[in-house]
């Protein structure tokens, strides 16, 4: 049960880290798109190049913008190739110009004003701060994260119940021992201490075995992540706080065993005069 709890807990932490990373990576960037100018190909390309220069000048003059650079034709083709295939065909297609904008950290920028100024300077320019698609992605991920936390809670409750009932059953088996110790004059606290100590050690031992098979499992996920398609899931390593939580699970299981054993012994003793 500690293994299942640890896997679910790791999943929740990894997902949370992933969302934070997406948010952090995207929040410092903007994209300006300039639609292809109407007219013949040569003329349209010339017009687009001129628009790009205007927009770049405007961006460079905007406070808070650290860097703005237009993507080359090769870069644009490279972006579309995975979806549209043939690069020959793409080279012949009129592609919009894309300008990648990097913002200075910790700088507030009025995106609405910037958008208006861009449109005023170049009517075919539009500003994309990635918020729309990121909000959807993060919404989906938060939903999955909530589900993972729900699973962690359910597994946690099941783990606690399993430890509780296993310890209680163990105590029932030892009822004779409890009775004999009671009859020879041991106090309730003394008897409870003997069983609680043993239950703690057993709980800790079981928890450590569970942890022993969790660590390689989480390690394999982190190792295999970079090989996954898309790069979005590249960083699947467990954060430090996650490791602390996972490593604390055996201790939690042991403490739960201790408390349960104490309660079971006291309950058994409570039925004796």
């Amino acid at each position, binding site marked *: 049960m500690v293994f299942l709890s640890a896997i679910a807990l790791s999943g929740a932490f990894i997902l949370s880290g992933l969302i934070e990373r997406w948010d952090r990576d995207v929040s410092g960037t903007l994209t300006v798109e300039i639609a292809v100018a109407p007219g013949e190909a040569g003329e349209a390309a010339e017009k687009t190049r001129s628009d790009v220069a205007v927009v770049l000048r405007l961006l460079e003059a905007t406070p808070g913008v650290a860097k703005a650079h237009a993507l080359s034709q090769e870069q644009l083709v490279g972006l579309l190739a995975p979806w549209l295939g043939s690069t020959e065909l793409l080279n012949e297609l009129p592609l919009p110009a894309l300008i990648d904008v990097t913002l200075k950290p910790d700088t507030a920028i009025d995106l609405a004003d910037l958008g208006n100024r861009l449109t005023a300077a170049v009517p075919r320019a539009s500003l994309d701060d990635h918020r729309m698609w990121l909000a959807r992605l993060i919404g989906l991920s938060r939903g999955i994260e909530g589900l993972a936390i729900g699973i962690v809670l359910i597994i946690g409750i099941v783990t606690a119940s399993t430890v509780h009932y296993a310890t209680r059953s163990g105590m029932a088996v030892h009822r*004779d*021992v409890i*009775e*004999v*110790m*009671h*009859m*020879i*004059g*041991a*106090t*309730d606290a*003394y008897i409870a201490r003997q069983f609680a100590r043993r239950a703690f050690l057993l709980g800790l031992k079981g928890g450590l075995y569970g942890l022993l098979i969790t660590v390689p499992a989480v390690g394999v996920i982190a190792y295999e992540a970079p090989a996954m398609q898309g790069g979005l899931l590249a960083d699947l390593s467990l954060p430090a706080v996650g490791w602390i939580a996972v490593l604390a699970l055996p201790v939690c299981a042991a403490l739960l065993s201790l408390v349960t054993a104490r309660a079971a012994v006291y309950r058994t003793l409570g039925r*004796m*005069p």
Partner: protein
Amino acid sequence: MQFFPAGRGGRGLRRQPADKTHVVQFQGVGVRYEHGPEILQDIDFALPAGSFHFLTGPSGAGKSSLLRIMYLAQRPSRGRILLFGRDIASTRRYELPALRRRIGVVFQDFRLLNHLSTLDNVALPLRVAGASETDVQKFVPDLLAWVGLADHLKSRPAVLSGGQQQRVAIARAVIGRPDLLLADEPTGNVDDEIAMRLMYLFEELNKLGTTVVVATHNESLVARMSRPQLRLEGGRLWGG
């Protein structure tokens, strides 16, 4: 006798000498289980400090039930019980362990702890009472040697014969040099020679001031020992 801790310095290991005339007093005690008939009725007796009694009677007469009440494993349905001068009815639950440590019990079914060695089983009352490990290692092996189990200090109860287990149970009951020793059929599984040896142990304890009650079917043993009897028949007590 050199088997018992003499210093009595351990927490709860020794008590004040019983300053009351009687160690056990039963007044109009009755016992019934659930709503069944009374299995012990109107039990009245008093055991003077330092006395030695046999508790006799046919099977089912209630000997074990009477002993259970005396070693505080069960409360009577009615009547008054004074143990070491204390009225049990008004004794708080947390005070009972100290009283129990003054009582040694030899259970009919031995009730040894199977996960402990012979030495650890016998040492249990001393450890519960807070005796030092030095005392444990000093007195327990000597007592086990006296009951003929010197070679079985590390043996678990499961590998001992019935007679050997019984002797371990007796050693556990007497190691704390109790004020009151209650033995339920303590010689049921041993031959006559060992039985007399165990009785000698009880007598020695008795000479040291322990009040002894031995429940037994062994009529020849009772006859040889010439000690007063408490006879239970039909749930009532005769003699005492």
